[in-house]
């Protein structure tokens, strides 16, 4: 199942400057593995030693924050768009 993943600028050094990549996965956890498979080293940036997404990183599936879904267990379907966004301040 093809998932479109939007890569933030700080991680594009792993993806040969691509801002968007297509991968196969059925969950967010699976997608993280698939990302590491294609772009070795990227997983250590995204997750801590226990495999949890870093707390200053937000992940959205079709614009919904995965913390409103099933976190890293959130299921993915063909055509979903996943976006990885570092936290920002503002107001």
């Amino acid at each position, binding site marked *: 199942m093809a998932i479109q993943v939007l890569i*933030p*600028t700080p991680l594009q050094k792993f993806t040969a400057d691509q*801002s968007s990549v297509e991968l196969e996965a059925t969950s967010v956890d699976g997608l993280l593995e698939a990302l590491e498979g294609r772009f070795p080293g990227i997983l250590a*940036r995204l997750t801590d030693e226990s495999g949890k997404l870093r707390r*200053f990183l937000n992940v959205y599936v079709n*614009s919904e924050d995965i913390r409103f879904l099933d976190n890293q267990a959130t299921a993915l379907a063909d055509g979903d768009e996943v976006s990885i966004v570092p*936290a*920002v301040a503002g*107001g």
Partner: protein
Amino acid sequence: MIAVSTSRFQYPTPQVGFNGSFYPALLACTNSCCRALTATLSRSTFTGLRCKECGHPYEASARHVCEDVCFGPLEVVYDYDAIRNRVSRASIEAGPTSIWRYREFLPIEGDPIDVGTGFTPLLKANRLARRLGLRNLYIKNDGVNMPTLSFKDRVVSVALTRARELGFTTVSCASTGNLANSTAAIAAHAGMECCVFIPSDLEMGKVLGTLIYNPTLMAVKGNYDQVNRLCSEVANTYGWGFVNINLRPYYSEGSKTLGYEVIEQLGWQLPDHIVAPLASGSLFTKIRKGFEEFIKVGLVDEKPVRFSGAQAEGCSPIAQAFAEGRDFITPVKPNTIAKSIAIGNPADGPYAIDLANRTKGTIAAVSDQEIIDGIKLLAETEGVFTETAGGTTIAVLKKLVEQGKIDPGETTVAYITGNGLKTTEAVASSVGEPHTIEPQLASFNAAWERAQSLHRASWEPIGA
């Protein structure tokens, strides 16, 4: 190495790559303009960026997250010995009546964009204090900040000065309203291109107060967190300076001036307790940083200051986490009239919780009705018309006094961050109506009689 003989200190060796964009021009040009540049360059007191979480160093470029290690937020690193050698109470008092009197504490290299931002009134709020049962209450009124009547003018003045130094010609932001007003206005003054993003449901005053400066304004059908996500993606592909994204380390430093000013305006003393609104949590932590820096360089004597934060119940992820004893934030979807602080996924939330805990402060939330009552209370007792964020702060202040969490004798400062004329919708149905009369004395007499009896009916004693 840059050293200027008139300077009292030797500028430290810059980090690798720091100021890289300036050196070629300096080396290639012998005009007098560059000698001037050398002189101003030497005034900068910051040496680079550093991850707030893991400490990893970065050069002072347009970046905001620890991309090499942990994605934590980056913050500016200063040479405090240099600052200590250069500033004194007298040198600050002799500076401009704007945030730039504290320029040694701000991350810029050359001349600032000075539109008169900062040095807003610190009001001794005796009538409000009596109403609440306090004795030493002050209102820091950034509702009259320049040029756009909110504290955001502080952060934007710094961000756009730095943006210009880093070579950006277009600036942008994701905003709940006030930041958009400020970015558009100061960009206009500085002659920079501007494209700003807001949620599409903002108050008319905030929308008009941006459009008048003629930026490109994108009203996004979504809440602030969705606007921010979109902007992060735009920032990936457009080479713009986003004040709250890739310029965030510089931008957020502007809020420290709210700490410096209160110290100076209290007669070079720290308060005992501060109450401030919490949106992303950045302002709260930067007021603290401002206090700490003045202690560090010897401008003020150290003493404990309690930090208490205010949120609206309809968007209170930080207050909820605080109440439950969590150190992490569970994002929420905002639903409150306090749109300017409606951030459901606050980036600095964990730091705000830590600060409230460490200083024995608290974080509380109030309802929309309490926010409206807070706006009216401040207006009726002190003549200050604030927006919903200020109403939130006053309502939480009231609540904390009622709960015994503020000692009546404490020198307490409530930070009012925005102006009520921008959010008139919030109070339009709660402020009554004018008495419409004929241009005749009899008509006035009758109306005055009615007004007096209405006034007596709603009158409540102010207390001792």
